[in-house]
């Protein structure tokens, strides 16, 4: 499998994740799609450039993805405690 096959896989995954993020209404799924987007970008990062620097970048992006998941899950837990739902359409305390 060449690097370009891997890169196409990454682009495809990224596009699917972005489309899923924009179309699904469940916040938990949106969070999962966000993680998928970051991971797709990570695959592209290491597949397209074999230099060690890009692998170091990928490791740092793991850390960022983990931190993002942590903050995101904390927000979702508080959200569900407040609103008793995690459907984006049902959370309309603020105008707009």
């Amino acid at each position, binding site marked *: 499998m060449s690097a370009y096959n891997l*890169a196409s896989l*990454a682009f495809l995954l*990224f596009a699917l*994740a*972005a489309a899923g*993020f924009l179309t699904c209404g469940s*916040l938990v799924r*949106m969070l999962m799609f*966000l993680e998928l*987007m*970051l991971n*797709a*970008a*990570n695959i*592209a*990062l290491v597949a*397209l*450039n074999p230099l060690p620097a*890009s692998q170091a*970048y990928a490791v*740092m*992006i793991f850390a*960022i993805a983990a*931190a*993002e998941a942590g*903050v*995101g899950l*904390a*927000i*979702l837990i*508080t*959200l569900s*405690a*407040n*609103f008793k739902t995690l459907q984006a359409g049902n*959370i309309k*305390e*603020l*105008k*707009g």
Partner: protein
Amino acid sequence: MTFDPVAYAASALAGPLLLVLAAFGCLLLPLFFKALRGTQGMIALGAVLVVLIFFRQAPPAQLSFFSGALNLSPLSSYLWAFAMGVLALFFALSLAKPPAPEGSEGEYYFLAFMATTGLLVMMAAGDLFTAFIALELLSLPVYALAGIRRSKPGIEAAYKYFMLGAFGSGMTVMGIAVLNALYPSLDFVALKAAAPAGQLALAGFLLVISGFAFKTALVPFHMWVPDAYEGAPTQVSAFMGAAVKAGGVVLLWRVFSLFDGGPIREIFWWLTVITAVFANLAALAQNGLKRLLAYSSIAHAGYIAVAFFGGQRGWEAVLYYLPVYAMATIGAFGVVLILEKDEKGPKIDDLAGLAKTRPWLAAAMAAFMFSLAGVPPLAGFFAKFYAFAGAVAGGYTSLVVIAVIMSAVSIYYYLRVTVVMYMKVPANGGDHPVEAPGLAEAVVFLMAAGVLLAGLFSRPLLALAAEASRWF
């Protein structure tokens, strides 16, 4: 005395390091020492004032550290001093009316310190990847800060901000992955020097720019702004408007300046126009004061983007614009903080009769509104003037014409606030809180003096901005 770069670097880099230290101090010390509980705010404000000492002296030239990841220059000193000033004002507002629930003060100040550390690193970042990491360090704590109250409006603001912010980050990472494959290095200097690449590079830059535009809140990447500003604690809204936006502006400007022409400039042109037009029109329909300020912040991101087209003079204008806008915004949110009775803040009509009940507060609010609208002799007028003059000199007259027209539209909604304060008879006798925390009033009046003085005597600040802009 000769200049010693190593000693300078030690003292300058001690600034961000001290912020991290103070962050953990605020978080952990009160756990071990009961006497310190509830005093985190004082510790935090003290730490900020200590850190400000480290920026007294700007380096005479650009100094690169960590193989170019961090560049210290008079520019970064200027931006760092600005960021620390905003943080100090944010802490003063937080001390005046604690937004964090009892027992979470430690987290509140921890998050604010970490966000500012990210902001400082981002402002001095020498390559795209460092800038992105710093941007995440800035954003993640602010998502949590927006929801620190764990109440309905706050947590809804936090989730909207988080989802769209994280989506923007995802796009930025993908863009970085593409650019990393096409360019030998992600260093801003190397990116500029490299030969312009084809379609794929364009796609990479577009992804990166979209991600950054989410943070700066350019239309059409602004959807989170009104809700986030409305639901977040007012102090945090002020921080988002002044500091987070400034960080986004610096990042966008770094990417923008890689291009002397071509499709990226055109795309920026359109982003700027759409932002200026849409934000001002949407602001006309707002009734909540916090939402109005949110749309106003989007509009000002548009005006700042106009200045990007002015080349060297444009950078100068941006550097003058950022503190002037920050003063007016922090001041206006300070007034909101004094008047607010619930988390969503007062409606514009709730300000009726303020000129009778609290004449000085009304005068200060009027000063902020006129400065944001760009009425001379307040600082906002000169900020807009310099921003637009640079773009005209650069040959982007049509862009400036649109921005000036939309700026005229904006006078309507800024003036509406003033008219309500001075001329409208309050329905309920104007029950404005008579007692306000002294610290919040001090911040408001300091900012009012700031927008007045920075307008009447714009030379000193402008000279500082001009000096800093030469190091870009």
